[in-house]
């Protein structure tokens, strides 16, 4: 809070221009990602504390170290992209940094994430064991169809029991994290039809075609 009489008188247009600029700068910085950490040390790191800078743009690894090993990261990357593959209009999960987010989550010094850590690490191992059992090949090196085949088993609560009692729970959790991480990126938001977070001078209400869509016009 600065002294009121020193405050610059900003006009609305200037404020919006400034905001647009800030939003663009933020978007540009988001694509830089950290290289993998090669160790899986126990989580002893500290969190960001009760008074972190909220305006800072964070990347996985900025606050606490990432802990997945390189083989675990390979499995993670491949699994993320089976869950969210690229298509004509939007990128895959790994193209927007989701594997780093998974690593950040698994490595986080907070209770909810610590609870997820054993399930997610075990699950990555189950995925590899199943790839070896079926195809004697690492999951990341399988064909798309082979990867999908394995995921279909994990995604089905009944069939997944044959792999492990918690295999389906692992897959659901991993899917939720992967998809949630993807759709909270600018590319993911666009892909699912969220086009807000931009300032405008007026709010004109729903367009006519939206009203027509639900019988209001």
């Amino acid at each position, binding site marked *: *809070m600065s002294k*009121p009489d020193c*405050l610059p008188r*900003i006009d*609305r247009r200037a*404020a*919006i221009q400034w*905001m647009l600029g800030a939003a663009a700068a*933020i978007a540009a910085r988001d694509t830089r990602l950290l290289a993998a950490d090669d160790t899986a040390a126990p989580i002893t790191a500290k*969190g*960001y*504390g*009760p*008074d*972190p800078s*909220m*305006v800072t743009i964070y990347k996985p690894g900025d606050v606490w170290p990432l802990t997945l090993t390189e083989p675990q990261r390979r499995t993670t990357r491949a699994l993320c992209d089976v*869950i*969210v*593959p690229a*298509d004509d209009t939007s990128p895959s999960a790994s193209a927007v940094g989701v594997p780093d*987010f998974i690593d*950040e*989550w698994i490595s*986080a010094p*907070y209770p*909810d994430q610590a609870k997820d850590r054993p399930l997610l690490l075990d699950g990555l191992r189950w995925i590899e064991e199943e790839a070896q059992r079926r195809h004697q090949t690492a999951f990341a090196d399988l064909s798309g169809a082979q990867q*999908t085949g394995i*995921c*279909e088993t*994990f*995604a*089905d*609560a009944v069939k997944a029991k044959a792999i492990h009692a918690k295999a389906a729970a692992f*897959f659901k959790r991993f*899917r*939720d994290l992967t*998809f*949630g*991480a993807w759709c*909270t*990126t*600018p590319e993911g*938001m666009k892909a*699912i*039809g*969220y*086009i*807000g*977070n931009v*300032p*405008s001078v*007026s*709010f004109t*209400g*729903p*367009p006519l075609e*939206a009203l027509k869509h*639900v019988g*209001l016009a």
Partner: protein
Amino acid sequence: MPLITAEKLRDSYDVVIVGSGAGGGQTAYTLTMEGVKVLVLEAGRSFDVQTEVAMFQLPSQAPLRGVATPDKQYGFHDCSINSGWDIPGEPYTQAGKAPENQFRWWRQRMMGGRTNHWGRISLRNGPYDFKPRSRWGAGFDWPISYEDVAPYYDKVEMLIGVFGTNEGLENSPDSSPGVLQPAPKLRVGELYAQKHGKKVGAHVTSIHRAVLTQPQDAETLPAKLHPGNPKAQGILAEHMRNRLPCFWATDCHRGCTIRANYDSQTVHLRPALATGNLDILPNAMAREITIDKEGKATGITFIDKTTGREGHAKGRVVVLAASSMESVRLLLNSKSNLFPQGLANSSGKVGTSITDSVASGLGAYIPAFEGMPIHNEDGAGGAHAYVPWTLHAQNRNGELGFPGGYHLEFASGRRMPTLTTFSGIDSRSGSATTLFGARLKEDARRVHGCVLGFAAQGSMLPNDGSYCELDPEIKDRWGIPVLRFHWKWTEFERNQVRHQQKHIRELLEALGGSVKPFVEADLIESMKPGGSVIHEVGGAIMGSDAATSVTNQWSQTWDVKNVFLADGAPFASTADKNPTLTIMALAWRMADHLMDELKKGNI
């Protein structure tokens, strides 16, 4: 920024206020504009809304996609620092073990208090809300009526800027002509609920929120608010011109750098500082109200959190606006030979009559929204519509089994996705397996924005099982005894939640959603624990006699004439309206009375 340090305190102030939120901010504003010398003590650090709030940052730019953690309990980008239900070194305890006997206590330790973390919903209490005993035969009548507060509601709304419409509704009062800012257009989901809600008696209409939808009228409002006071008018006009109207993006809970929405620093403390009559001391944790031999308050003892040293601020008058429960704690901790039960507690009523909004919610998938043409639905950073309580005829004498009523808040449309937005997508898509791949992306696109949920918030009257006291053993990190909470839901609240759940289900079904029928076994689980809505009030309620209440109608304690309360503590009950606007209106009214009493030499 003219914040001071403990060394810079003046020898004495006219008024020492504890807390810088809605109540403390409004009190400081009203007093300093009239020339009263004021000190505000704030337990948290200074906070610069202009540079510290994250308006446009995406979840992908926060650690863990911004989900809540023990460090940031409402999510990373929520405008709260050093705040939460659980703050290290600052515990509170529970007398009961059962889940329904728990009370959760949110503390906001930062400049501006909880006004940083707020949906800006600004609803007036109605005439019935001040007279629950007369109307429903339960609780306590407030010693004031709606007519006493109405002029102050007008003033506060003109000052802070509130959008909305006047609907002529029973017990949800209109504002005076020219007071409200124009309401924004309703979103398509809100209009859809408006049309189809009618089938089940739900009146969907524009909500009132403290967000500017157009520039404030700096030419005429200052003269209305400060007649005969050109200095105050000039300061206020300047500050009104420095606020921009909403730019229709970003969630209000993140704070607002363009000052379109209200927070205490932006609207109250800045002009108050500009008068030259205000000092603000941050990082000052109030410990005790000090008194003289005659039992008059002399000031506040506080811990300077930057040094750990104890300090004292002297004032002719002390105003507690530390949040309802924190103000109660201060009174209880101010024990002396004259006041062995704590200050202003000769009635034994300090800590009693705590109430909170009675809340539950329910959501459903609305198939009609599928395939909605994509458009930007952000709007004014929160709801444009709500469902006020209108079943007064059915509940004239509590015939529904509970006094008062509840309103419904809801959010519709394609909102910014969070990490968990699509966690329930499988059942929504009718899939027995966990979806992935191309179908997952397609279905997410199809279902996004199709879920509509209603959250009910309703009245609560005091009961003998909901109160707090000092814990006999536990102290916080500053050595100050902590509060122990007792919480009880009565059949009134349980009946209200049964009604909420039934009504919301009917409403969702009227919109084409399908919802599982309510089962009685889910009742306690669907009731949010006491304190969860962060609307807790009471604990030092106002009344018409000193034996059964803590303050008079001016929020002035019966026992100590120069101690006033300016937060929710004097509320004699919780209405079906959010408390913040009423806190401000009562604070302004209290401050006017305080100045009269000072002038008359009564305090």
